[in-house]
C-alpha cells in the first residue's frame, strides 16, 4: 500500500504519456496529433515537478522562520523553460498544419499519403 501511494504519481504520469503517444500513433488528423503531443509534454512537466516535491515542504520562496523546508527549485526552473519552448513548438506545428491545408486541402494523414503517391513532385 505504501508502495502504491508513493509511486502513484509516476504511474499516472506514465498513463498520460502513453495516452499522448497513442493519439500520436493512431489518429490520422494532424491537429489531433498535436493535441497528443501537448498531452505528452504536460506529462513530462508533471514528472519533473513530482520529483521536486518534498514532504512538508513549501514553495521555494524564502520566508523568515526556523526550520522551514523548501521543495527543490531546480525542476521548476527547467520546466519553466520547457513550457515556453513547448508552446513555441506547438505554434510552429500548427503553422505547418495550416500551410499543409492550404497546399493539399486536407489535414488527414492517409489522404495526404494518397495525394503524395499520385503526384510525387507536388
Amino acid at each position, binding site marked *: 500500500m505504501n508502495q502504491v501511494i508513493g509511486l502513484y504519481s509516476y504511474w499516472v504520469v506514465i498513463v498520460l504519456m502513453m495516452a499522448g503517444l497513442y493519439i500520436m500513433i493512431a489518429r490520422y488528423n494532424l491537429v489531433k496529433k498535436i493535441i497528443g503531443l501537448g498531452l505528452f509534454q504536460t506529462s513530462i512537466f508533471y514528472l519533473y515537478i513530482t520529483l521536486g516535491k518534498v514532504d512538508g515542504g*513549501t514553495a521555494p*520562496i524564502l520566508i523568515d522562520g526556523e526550520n522551514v523546508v523548501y521543495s527543490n527549485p531546480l525542476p521548476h526552473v527547467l520546466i519553466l523553460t520547457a513550457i515556453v519552448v513547448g508552446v513555441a513548438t506547438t505554434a510552429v506545428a500548427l503553422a505547418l498544419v495550416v500551410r499543409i491545408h492550404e497546399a493539399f486541402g486536407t489535414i488527414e494523414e492517409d489522404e495526404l499519403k494518397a495525394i503524395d503517391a499520385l503526384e510525387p513532385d507536388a
Partner: protein
Amino acid sequence: MFIAATIAILVTMALTLARALLGPTLFDRLLAVNSFGTKTVLLISVYGFMTDRPDFLDIALVYSLINFLGTIAVLKFFEFDDPGSETYQEDDF
C-alpha cells in the same frame, strides 16, 4: 474547516468533470469547463489558507482571468462560424 471545504470542492470538480466528458453538445462541455475553472480558483484559494501560506492567491487571480478569456475565445470562434450548421450537434459518446 479548510480540509472540509477542499474535499467539497474536489467532489464538485469531479461532478463537473463528468459533465465535461459526457456533455452531449460542445456547449455543455464549455459550460462545464468554465464552471471547472471557477472551482479551480476556489480550490487554490482554500488550499493556500489550508497550508498556512496565503501568499499564492495571485495564481487564483490569474486563473479567474484566464478562464474567462478562454471561454470567450471559444465562444467567439463559434460565433464567427456558420451559425445553425449541424457541426456542433453531434453526440460523441
